């Protein structure tokens, strides 16, 4: 990891001229049929010293906004069914915040809200049920799935001016455009800011299948019928036991 970091840092332009320089280990993550999760490393350097006594770094990554519905189960005649629902029109499918220190220790609430730093600062407005339990459940389920991460690992500092953090991407991340915001924080305000982006793309057979099923669903249905018939027929020929 260390040597990789050193190698990556060599690629940074004119370190120490800019107040903040940051890069990503990759700008493209491929979701193939065998994708079981991956990670993106955010790394960079600062002009002024970071760490205890100096400035701090906060990194926030978020994926595409998608609609989600949270439902509460209710008991009817002894059986549990989905009952009241809260629908959120635009929820980041992936969200991660990490810092050299937790964001709430570095910035006042107004700034954290402005930059959406922290799960409690995400703007989530539901239609339907409005009880706070629905929002809490949304946060809890997303966190358990590893899709929302808050300070699960601190941003590491090397040599007082270099920093890096590894953002794990679970197997269930959706395809789309992801943004990474790197903030240099000094005396409770944002001193410098860099915006980065990467793309999560479906590739290979999985991508083709998903595309055809969405773009031409009728054709896809007919293909499924033909393939199942062929597979069933072929299998019965291959495994015939008499």
């Amino acid at each position, binding site marked *: 990891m260390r040597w990789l970091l050193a190698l990556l840092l060599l690629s940074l332009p004119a370190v120490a001229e800019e107040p903040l320089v940051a890069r990503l280990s990759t700008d493209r993550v491929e979701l193939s049929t065998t994708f079981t999760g991956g990670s993106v490393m955010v790394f960079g350097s600062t002009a002024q010293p970071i760490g205890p006594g100096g400035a701090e770094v906060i990194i926030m990554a978020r994926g595409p906004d*998608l609609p989600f519905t949270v439902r509460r189960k209710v008991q009817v005649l002894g059986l549990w069914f*989905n009952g009241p629902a809260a629908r959120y029109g635009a929820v980041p499918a992936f969200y991660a915040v990490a810092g050299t220190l937790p964001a709430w220790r570095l910035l006042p609430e107004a700034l954290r809200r402005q930059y959406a730093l922290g799960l409690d600062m995400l703007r989530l407005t539901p239609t339907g049920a409005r009880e706070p339990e629905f929002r809490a*459940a949304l946060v809890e389920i997303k966190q358990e799935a590893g899709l929302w991460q808050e300070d699960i690992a601190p941003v590491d500092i090397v040599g007082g001016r270099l920093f890096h953090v590894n953002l794990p991407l679970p197997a269930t991340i959706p395809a789309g455009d992801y943004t990474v915001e790197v903030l240099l924080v000094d005396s409770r305000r944002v001193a410098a800011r860099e915006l980065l982006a990467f793309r999560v793309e479906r590739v290979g057979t999985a991508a083709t299948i998903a595309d055809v099923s969405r773009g031409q669903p009728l054709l896809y249905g*007919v293909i499924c*019928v033909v393939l199942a018939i062929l597979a069933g027929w072929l*299998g019965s020929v291959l495994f015939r036991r008499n």
Partner: protein
Amino acid sequence: MQVYLPIAEMTVDAFLLVGIGFAVGWLSGLFGVGGGFLLTPSLILLGVPAPVAVASGANQVLGASTSGMIAQWRRGNVDWTMGGVLVAGGLVGSAIGIQLFAWLKSAGLVDAAVSLFYVVVLGALGTLMVLESARAILRRSKKRQARLHEHFWMHGLPFKLRFRKSRLFISVIPPLLVGATVGLLSSIMGVGGGFMLVPAMIYLLGMPTGVVIGTSLFQVVCVAAAVTVMAAWQLGTVDIVLTLLLLLGGVAGAQFGAQMGTRLRGEETRFLLGALVLSVAGLLLWGLIDTPARLFNLSAG
């Protein structure tokens, strides 16, 4: 080996899916049923979203039933007239089922509804099978005189049609209704429906047993194909990767199971199958009764 299912949008062990396919195929070969009613609940228990489990289950049933239908066709055991009427009903039933499913999906009630359908249908069927086979085992020594053809209210219905191969002259309404019911269940439960179709054809329609298996397989293949196309088109829930992995194990398992099945006697087979059907129903009922570990759940859309 981990594999990503593009429609279910999840990563599962490919060997586990092939294994489930094999186990279900083995049981279905052993008992001479399609096995959809075991497959779909297994997938749901594995964590596959219920709509994908149902649609891919129907797609798997199509593949698993094809070779059997071709074999029956070659032996001349398909009553095409009866099959055509059953399929006509089946298409209407499955089209209604898909609309109902789409509505349930938007209301977030799919999982509970699918479970409930399984509990009611399998519970009733399993109880009947266990009781009937237990009675048959107890009465084995006594022989009963079977009448060739019993007449009841059904035979007074209009629109009569001659089904030559089945040696029947009956109204088309009962087979249409039977086909529609099975089509509805097929699209909501992801099953072929052979377990309901066969008894209905024998006891309700009075078809000779020789043509029942072939004709029911014809209906199952046609309706499963229709459900696959409609589910892919309207719901976007057919996962072909899932289907093919299940078929890989399923077709192999069915051959082994069928070989072993020839050694079991009819009543014992029906008793065991009934017990199996009841335990699947019981498991799903428990899933509905048991207080959920978490009261809230999240779904996309």
